């Protein structure tokens, strides 16, 4: 099966005030199958939000794409002109941002905000726009789309706002949806509800979804594959089930180890300290040799300081970048 989105060796850097360029993504490659849910796991500074923005070339002015390709349905978006990009952004590939209260306009009714997206992409009759807007809202708010459409964002709860944003994103029937921490601001019950909405959309509309998060537990039972980013590099990529059950990279292992668990708290280790990864993940701006995780790694070897470990394939589909593993 052909992939719907393919990112090849993407390099992105930001210019700092001192006119120095700081790499944020160095050689990220992955593909996305139609209808797949790909979880992108990374901590702050790992480049996960930059990845979301650079796929559609929506970087801030100091961002710079140094190389690589993003193929959407076979077309390289890095070479597409402005007009071509405009037809894809928001229509074929849609983005959902972190903070639903910031992403919606505060003084426009949410129904109108969705209608405007439709109008910008399809020159259609007024009546059609109205009908389609209502159709999208009834998909996300089966209990009463009309009341929600008439509401202003401040009149809605966090979960409802996130649903309204999803309505905006799917209005033009996109093929790919990229969601950057869509549930970070929500409580667990609402969070589950929104994940359920994504699952439903995948089934009904065949959407492929890239879900960006820092919480590995969120991806369990939800994502098909998981891509782990660390300091702008893919350090592990594989089927979600395998990766969460038997992580290979020392960073992924440590990350999964340190999450507190609900059940065990009743039995043991309550009030004992959680295992931590020493140091912090904010990447230094200095050019550096070797593996990015080496300074914090508990199983580092001599080679890790000097050489960058290549991505090796374990068992066909599981990729990991660490010298501990050989093909």
């Amino acid at each position, binding site marked *: 099966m052909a992939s719907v989105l393919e990112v090849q060796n993407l390099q992105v850097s930001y210019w700092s005030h001192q006119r120095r360029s700081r790499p944020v993504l160095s050689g990220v490659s992955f593909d996305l199958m139609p209808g797949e849910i790909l979880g992108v796991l990374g*901590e702050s500074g790992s480049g996960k939000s930059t990845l979301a923005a650079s796929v559609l070339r929506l970087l801030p002015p100091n961002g710079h794409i140094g190389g690589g390709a993003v193929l959407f349905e076979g077309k390289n978006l890095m070479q597409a002109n402005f007009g071509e990009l405009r037809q894809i952004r928001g229509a074929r590939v849609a983005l959902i941002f972190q903070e639903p209260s910031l992403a919606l306009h505060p003084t426009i009714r949410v129904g109108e905000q969705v209608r405007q997206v439709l109008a910008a992409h399809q020159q259609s009759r007024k009546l059609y726009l109205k009908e389609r807007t209502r159709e999208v809202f009834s998909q996300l708010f089966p209990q009463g789309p009309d009341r929600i459409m008439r509401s202003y964002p401040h009149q809605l709860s966090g979960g409802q706002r996130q649903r309204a944003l999803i309505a905006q994103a799917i209005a033009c029937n996109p093929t790919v949806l990229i969601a950057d921490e869509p549930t970070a601001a929500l409580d667990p019950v609402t969070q589950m509800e929104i994940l359920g909405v994504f699952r439903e959309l995948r089934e009904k509309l065949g959407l492929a979804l890239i879900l960006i998060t820092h919480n*590995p537990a969120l991806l369990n039972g939800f994502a098909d594959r998981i891509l782990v980013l660390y300091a702008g590099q893919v350090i592990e990529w594989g089927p979600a089930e395998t990766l969460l059950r038997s992580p290979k990279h020392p960073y992924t292992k440590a990350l*999964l180890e340190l999450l507190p668990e609900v059940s065990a708290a009743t039995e043991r280790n309550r*009030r004992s300290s*959680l295992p931590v990864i020493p140091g912090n993940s904010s990447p230094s701006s200095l050019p550096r040799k070797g593996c990015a995780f080496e300074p914090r790694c508990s199983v580092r070897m001599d080679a890790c300081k000097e050489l960058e470990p290549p991505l090796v394939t374990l068992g066909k589909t599981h990729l990991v970048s660490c010298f501990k593993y050989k093909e």
Partner: protein
Amino acid sequence: MEPILKVENLVKRYAKRNLVGASQDFLALDGVSFTLTPGTTLAIVGESGSGKSTLASCIACLEPPSSGNLWFEGRNLAQSAERDLRDIRPKIQLIFPDPASSLNPRWNILDIVVEPLSLQLRFSRKERDLRAFVLLERVGLSADMAGRSAAELSGGQRQRLAIARALTLDPKILILDEALSALDCSVQAQIANLLLELQSAQGMTFLFITHDLAMAAHLADEIAVMSQGRIVEHAPSKKILRSPAHDATRQLLAAVPHLPHKPGPAIQP
């Protein structure tokens, strides 16, 4: 043990006005009662809008409750005059969810930690600085970072700084309002460990407000579940996790994301 804080039937009412100006009451807290034992951690969990943060600001004396009693050190904070509250507030400190917006990015680290001491007009400048250095070391920030501005710090370092600032006045109770949720998982673990260390070293009392049940279970001795302005269930953490009695608790527990090798709670009907 004698409780350090006793909350009795606390009510907070907000007036909601509609377009024509008719006011309608909204009960953010609807008769909340609990006691806090010194040296322990009570976690308050609940969905957004259940009144957790309103409770925090009432206890921290940032907002007066509409009715009810707040007993702390033999005084009823709900009935106290503003003058008296100024002596109380340093003893009950609050840490906010987002360290980036609760610290002035242009101040340097030393000034941020020293400010509460200067406001209270305690100690000489030299002594203040000395205390600040000790606190910075205690929360895991090195004293030679003192000259840097808050904007230069990472999220975890900022939250450490916020904790150091809260500790300057030797508070008896530390209220952590979603203090970990804005941080990365690995940083959350570091800060959680710091809190446990502080508690065992100084016998501090924590009120840990969160919607992360896994972290609440890890840190707290007792968990109180809030829903629509009321505490619907309050029990030792163990008991809440093993046999949740209220629907709101069960709902929250069922929604906790978990890893395959760390299964979720085994809920017994």
